[in-house]
């Protein structure tokens, strides 16, 4: 069975500093990994995905994620955080049935 874990419920970072939101996964076979963001009272918005190829994936709004097979991790990163990045972030893995299994989410707060 596949699963993802987001070890941090909350991440706080100062505006302009780099940010990292952590995700680890457990799957059999090749992982298809995704990051989504959720703003208050809104649905989930796709940020980026890893299917195969380059371990550094670039996505929307300046976000990127690094796939690390040996550490089974897929951490979300951004070089310089903005206050508008404050939101709830979800890591997800695609199941054999091709639906998404989500982590519990990490609330990112960027402090001005």
């Amino acid at each position, binding site marked *: 069975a596949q699963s993802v874990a987001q070890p941090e419920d909350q991440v706080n970072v100062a505006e302009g500093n780099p940010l990292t939101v952590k995700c680890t996964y457990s799957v059999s076979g090749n992982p298809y990994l995704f990051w989504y963001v959720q703003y208050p*009272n809104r649905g989930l918005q796709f940020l980026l995905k890893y299917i195969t190829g380059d371990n550094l994936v670039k996505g929307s709004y300046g976000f990127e994620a690094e796939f690390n097979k040996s550490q089974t991790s897929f951490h979300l990163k951004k070089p310089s955080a903005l206050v508008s990045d404050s939101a709830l972030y979800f890591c997800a893995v695609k199941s054999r*049935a091709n*639906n998404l299994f989500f982590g519990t989410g990490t609330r990112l707060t960027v402090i001005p």
Partner: protein
Amino acid sequence: EAGVAQSPRYKIIEKRQSVAFWCNPISGHATLYWYQQILGQGPKLLIQFQNNGVVDDSQLPKDRFSAERLKGVDSTLKIQPAKLEDSAVYLCASSLAAGNTGELFFGEGSRLTVL
């Protein structure tokens, strides 16, 4: 391109009452999903349709939840009778096809409060 449309956005009912949510996916998207997101948790899949057939409904509480996707386009999710623990946001999503590696596109959700 229009996104995934859901209605109503908000619904308040008393326990044991019934409620229905509607979803219109992105045009041309063969696969439709209903997720339940309880406050403080990640979304959990309730049911997945491929066209008008069910692919996965293993986590749907079938004694009270039902869903249909007539004609392979719009979908309706019904809860009858509702329980307090059904209070959640119900998210509809669609994707081009179940077999691809593409992302899911989500609607804004329908927030249910059961009193």
